[in-house]
């Protein structure tokens, strides 16, 4: 059975458009020192996704760097989605910058695919001229997305229409890499199957039995069919999960907190029926009856965490009033959130790792989600090794659930970092300390970085202890080129007669206890 006629609106380089970068300014999004998106001005200078940041700046010294911010992207996309809703109902957001609409009935109403596509382009151009969208209509979202995001780079052709039943021919020329399954694409290339046309020519039963469910799905896509056979069943109503907020919530954080449990319940209901959800409708209603409904599509199954992200994206734009919905921003607090599964299919399952590593990770993730439910999302962290000179700098804590990305690379030389072993206790807030010499006078560090007297006694935590050994001063002068962030510390290791050892620093404002070797 052939795929549903689908209209896809793709806004090129959306993260950069969302950040408000002008089209002629070369700009790129950098995550973990690598470019993840670049606009056409940057691409013209050879800045391509995957490039290291330093190399990208070498190729294009004027390159403007933009933070990766999914929330900003989603909020900025809301006006586009609202404009498209005026053209045709049922806008599904695949991700910020890309959305799909079932085009069959709207095209008949408008008087043809071409007319509908032109209307969509005009609507987006009116709502957000900087979006520079491209629109494509084809059989199925896969072909339409390819047509909208690749196709001709000719600016005059803002919309592309692949005639009904021609999607297979349209797709035939594309390389198998566009499927987004690198392992499968690699295998197919080695077997001499280079294009989607080659793949589509293979018998479908053999593809499924030889290469597994992923390849069967790819084979369907290559033939211009829907990714999954359309199931006749409608989702049973009890899969819908809803949450009433009393008193109504005015801040997104309040809703998200509750939405976590809601999403978990929703996912558990689907799992109990052996289903996964590819498309979900998130409905929000205020105490005054205003309602915002959005469809969200995901290539694979939507996990509970992915659902919470989408709730956040949707509500943030609406409640903060940046998105101009048809009725304007809501006038009251949010009273109801409902998750409705819009498109479900049988869960084909996934092979667990041989040693149960994934199983234990999933179990830990569930337990930590409950702790986050008790204490708040920021309460649970996980450490990531990063670059730095002090014991407190060399590991950063990232919130559980966020990507484990080090801010600064750890595998570089960090001159002046302290020798191993490291202190077992690093005070989150350094405490005042005192250091005196044999004559009882305070010890100081002079401009030449030498102590005025040998430390004989130290006071840490209110007790005076005799010094039995000390080393230092070890200066760490950071960012001396910038008067605002520069930081001069001289560090000492001190061992005391009680068997303890301490890391103390001398700064402009006196002595501080930084860490305990306990």
């Amino acid at each position, binding site marked *: 059975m052939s795929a549903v006629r689908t209209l896809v609106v793709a806004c090129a380089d959306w993260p950069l458009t969302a950040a408000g970068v002008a089209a002629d300014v070369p700009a790129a999004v950098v995550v973990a020192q690598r470019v993840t998106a670049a606009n056409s001005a940057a691409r013209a200078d050879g800045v391509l996704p995957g490039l290291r940041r330093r190399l990208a700046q070498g190729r294009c010294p004027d390159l403007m760097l933009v933070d990766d911010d999914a929330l900003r992207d989603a909020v900025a996309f809301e006006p586009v989605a609202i404009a498209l809703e005026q053209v045709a109902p049922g806008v599904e957001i695949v991700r910020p910058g890309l959305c799909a609409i079932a085009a069959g009935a709207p095209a008949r109403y408008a008087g043809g695919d071409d007319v509908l596509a032109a209307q969509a382009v005009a609507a987006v151009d009116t709502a957000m001229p900087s979006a520079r969208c491209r629109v494509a209509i084809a059989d199925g979202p896969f072909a339409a997305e390819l047509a909208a995001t690749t196709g001709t780079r000719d600016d005059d052709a803002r919309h592309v229409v692949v005639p009904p039943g021609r999607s297979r021919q349209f797709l035939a020329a594309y390389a198998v890499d566009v499927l987004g399954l690198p392992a499968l694409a690699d295998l197919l290339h080695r077997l001499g199957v280079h294009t989607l046309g080659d793949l589509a020519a293979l018998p479908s039963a053999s593809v499924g039995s030889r290469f597994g469910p992923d390849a069967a799905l790819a084979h369907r896509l290559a033939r211009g069919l829907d990714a999954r056979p359309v199931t006749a069943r409608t989702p049973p109503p009890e899969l819908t999960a809803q949450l*009433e907020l009393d008193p109504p919530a005015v801040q997104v954080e309040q809703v998200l907190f509750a939405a976590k449990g809601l999403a978990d319940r929703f996912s558990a209901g689907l799992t109990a029926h052996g289903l996964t959800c590819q498309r979900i409708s998130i409905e929000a209603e205020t105490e005054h009856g205003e309602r915002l409904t959005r469809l969200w599509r995901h290539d694979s199954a939507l996990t509970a965490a992915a659902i919470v992200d989408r709730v956040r994206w949707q509500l943030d734009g609406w409640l903060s009033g940046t998105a101009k919905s048809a009725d304007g921003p809501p006038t009251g607090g949010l009273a109801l959130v409902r998750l409705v599964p819009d498109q479900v299919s049988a869960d084909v399952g996934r092979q667990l790792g041989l040693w149960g590593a994934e199983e234990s990770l999933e179990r830990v993730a569930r337990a930590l989600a409950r702790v986050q439910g008790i204490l708040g999302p920021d309460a649970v962290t996980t450490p990531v090794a990063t670059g730095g000179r002090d014991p407190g700098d060399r590991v950063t804590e990232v919130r559980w659930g966020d990507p484990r990305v080090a801010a600064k690379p750890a595998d570089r030389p960090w001159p002046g970092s302290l020798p191993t072993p490291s202190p077992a206790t690093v005070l989150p807030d350094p405490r005042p300390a005192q250091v005196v010499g044999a004559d009882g006078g305070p010890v100081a560090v002079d401009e030449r970085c030498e102590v005025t007297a040998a430390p004989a006694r130290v006071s840490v935590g209110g007790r005076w202890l005799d010094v039995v050994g000390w080393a230092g001063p070890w200066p760490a002068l950071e960012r001396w080129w910038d008067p605002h962030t520069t930081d001069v510390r001289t560090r000492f290791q001190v061992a005391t007669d*009680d*068997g303890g050892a301490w890391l103390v620093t001398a700064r402009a404002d006196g002595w501080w206890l930084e860490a305990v070797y306990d």
Partner: protein
Amino acid sequence: MALAAPALPEAAHLAAPRTGHREPWPVVPALAALLPGGVLRPGTVVAVEGATSLALALLAGAATAGAWCGVVGVPGVGLVATAEHGVDLDRLVLVAHPGDAWTTVVATLVEAVDVVLVRPAGRRQEADVRRLAARIREREAVVVALGGWDGADVRLTVARSRWEGLGAGHGHLRARRVEVQATGRGAAARPRSTVLWLPGPSGRAEPADVATGAPPLAAVPAHPTTSRARPA
């Protein structure tokens, strides 16, 4: 909406029960002499007094064997030192400020995390702690408690400690010789004691060769502040 923390008995059904009897977790060789059987038995509580690094060394053996570790209520735990002891940071989770909810947090974590390091703090209800101990036994997790824990299965105390490597203005802290004493209940009732490097020059706990004739260790006076980063 109701956001009350789940009561301890109710949380039991939330995670699929682990099936079968769990294997004990190994410990680093330097600590083996202190624990009954030389292992961390599932379902037990080990109280550690006097040294954070001793608790980290206990975690390290299990972490090397693939255990997930959690640290609750120790905001000042030295994470670089933790990594140096041999704990894999990829399988370490931190709950720095659980406040009065620490029993609930630990009870939730032991559903999935194999070894939990906790500094009991805040209000502590006797009944909560007793229920938590029962939960730890039931889930076959290991809890390492910094500071006191009434009814701990094993109690490890640092009796003496001395740092090596520092001179008068030169050198750097290289290793620490400690004497650790162990007491406890049941199989651990017989007092034991051992001398080890904690940490050794590599940052890990290493067995000390008693025959080296090192100078006598300094006795550790009883003072609560040295081992505590900050009252939670």
